[in-house]
């Protein structure tokens, strides 16, 4: 960053919520609503998730968008907005699980009325395109939400699933019922050691980039940021990290967690020549906070539930790495 360059968002903002609101954790008998604010999904596709969450002792309410299809979307904008709105406003629903990602949240987010939700916050669950919802409620209302797998990731037959898949799905249940989350992950040679405490925010890099300049744009100062993405070229990932840097989102971090990045191979003759680790570390040369690579979050099997908007402690050592929820 050149001398004298303006770094938007580099200082604390007046309009940023000062405190974090953690929605009520779920108890046996509580209801989870399922809706599709982005891509379409069938009733059949969500059946394993419905069955599994019932075995956890929850009731399930299936939204009107499940089984609806408008091209790639789970219904028209109006239908998707109305379904999510109904779920947000319905007192009998304790948490809203998005059935899948895809694309579509930004098309309806400005039509949503969060006034009732703010008075009685509830868990919003999902990742990928749902990052727009996490970022929006964190930035505007300081309400915690759950970044995790969605209905389309539940195993068809629970007993056939491998342990990792089961553990990631069970992490959703644990998070929703109030377990204090604690994840150890493998150290990587490229990590930057250190320890940090702060509110955890983050999600899909592309989605976060396309929120820049909007009312859902994430504030990252003083926070621990986690990022993941899929299907992007290296050059595009590089450009997105420059966007984070140039919009002032990296300078004030307490810590950075890099999850899974499924990289689209370079086209022949267009070899980018810089690997992901260097793309990231290159932007962080002037910052001393801890950075951990390969955290189990992303478009992959080892995608564990993370509570956005909740304080965490990140510890990156040469022999061990830890992310744990703190009070």
């Amino acid at each position, binding site marked *: 960053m050149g001398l004298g360059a303006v770094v938007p968002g580099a200082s604390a903002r007046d309009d940023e919520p000062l405190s974090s609101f953690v929605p009520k954790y779920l108890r046996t008998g509580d209801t989870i609503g399922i809706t599709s604010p982005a891509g379409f999904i069938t009733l059949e596709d969500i059946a394993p998730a419905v069955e599994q969450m019932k075995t956890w002792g929850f009731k399930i309410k299936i939204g009107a968008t499940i089984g609806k299809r408008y091209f*790639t979307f789970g219904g028209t904008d109006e239908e998707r907005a109305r379904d999510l709105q109904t779920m947000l406003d319905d007192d009998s629903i304790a948490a809203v699980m998005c059935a899948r990602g895809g694309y579509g949240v*930004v*098309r309806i987010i400005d039509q949503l009325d969060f006034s009732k939700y703010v008075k009685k916050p509830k868990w919003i669950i999902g990742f990928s395109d749902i990052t727009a919802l996490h970022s929006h409620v964190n930035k505007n209302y300081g309400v915690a939400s759950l970044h995790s797998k969605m209905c389309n990731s539940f195993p068809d037959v629970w007993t056939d699933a491998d342990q990792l898949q089961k553990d990631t799905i069970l992490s959703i249940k644990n998070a929703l019922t109030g377990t204090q989350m604690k994840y150890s992950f493998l150290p990587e040679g490229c990590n930057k050691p250190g320890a940090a405490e702060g509110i955890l925010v983050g999600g899909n890099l592309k989605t976060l980039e396309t929120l820049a300049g909007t009312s859902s744009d994430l504030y990252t100062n003083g926070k621990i940021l986690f990022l993941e993405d899929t299907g992007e070229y290296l050059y595009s990932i590089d450009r997105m990290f420059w*966007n984070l840097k*140039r*919009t002032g989102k990296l300078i004030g971090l307490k810590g950075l967690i890099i999850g899974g990045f499924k990289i689209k191979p370079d086209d022949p003759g267009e070899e980018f*020549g810089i690997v992901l680790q260097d793309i990231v570390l290159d932007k962080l040369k002037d910052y001393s906070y801890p950075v951990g690579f390969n955290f189990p979050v992303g478009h992959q099997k080892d995608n564990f539930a993370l509570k956005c908007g909740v304080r965490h402690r990140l510890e990156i050592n040469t022999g061990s790495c830890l992310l744990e929820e703190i009070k």
Partner: protein
Amino acid sequence: MVKIPPYLHPGDTIGIVCPAGYMEAEKVQACIDALRTWGYYVKTGMTVGSPSENYFSGTDKERLGDFQQMLDDDKISAVLCARGGYGVTRIIDDIDFSKFIEHPKWLIGFSDITLLHSHIFSNYGISTLHAPMAGAFNDEDPENIYLQSLKKALEGKKISYSVDGNKFNVKGEAVGELVGGNLALIVHAIGTSSDIKTKGKILFLEDTGEYLYAIDRMFYQMKRAGKFDKLAGLIIGGFTNIKDTEKPFGKDIKEIIKEIIAGYDFPVCFDFPVSHATENYALKIGAGYKFKVGKKKVSLSE
């Protein structure tokens, strides 16, 4: 008031650099030949046909150094970027514009170069030239109207473009400074020091190789970031090589944009000849234009 760099005269020198992607020296030759035919001397920077073995036309330091040198060299009257690709973002915050501000010169290019256009106009109020680059001279006859529009723009001839109407157009008239370029780069700059202000401006946009859903998302970002709120006029250029997902998005480019602009009352034209294809008129960023969208004709005049 926008600062217009001095127009070029025969005998002036145009510098050619590659601040982003790699380009072979042979592929720049047709451009060099044409510029010479137009009466200019040409100086090629070390990033043109560089020995780089990766995507870029040199390391960040090399690309920055080459560009900086051309910017600061008093003997260079205009800097033409040979190609776009990706790379300006990586060096833009390290470019020193202090001498350029004192002695503005024309900066030419499009695509990734959009970031330079936006950055320079937003921060320094200096006009730049969104126009074909070296590659276009390989594919096209230098006599074609789009390459000739670059020639005329450099000579300082007032430019007036007229194109056929389109049933999707929104009629009306607007007067304002022209801003814009590649949609992906315009949204990429939002929230950064290179972001454009669009209030009272005429905005033009083009893109290539993007998925329909990604274009929709970018237009939503523009809308949600307030870029259409006080706009004077919107010019939609070519969206070439557009891709769709396996499950179709269900709307084409025009329908996506139509939906976004519903509720605004500025004039809009579609299919304006500014694009990654042959149809790519030279446009002066920051210059004042009159934009008229009629039933049968669309005109854009300085």
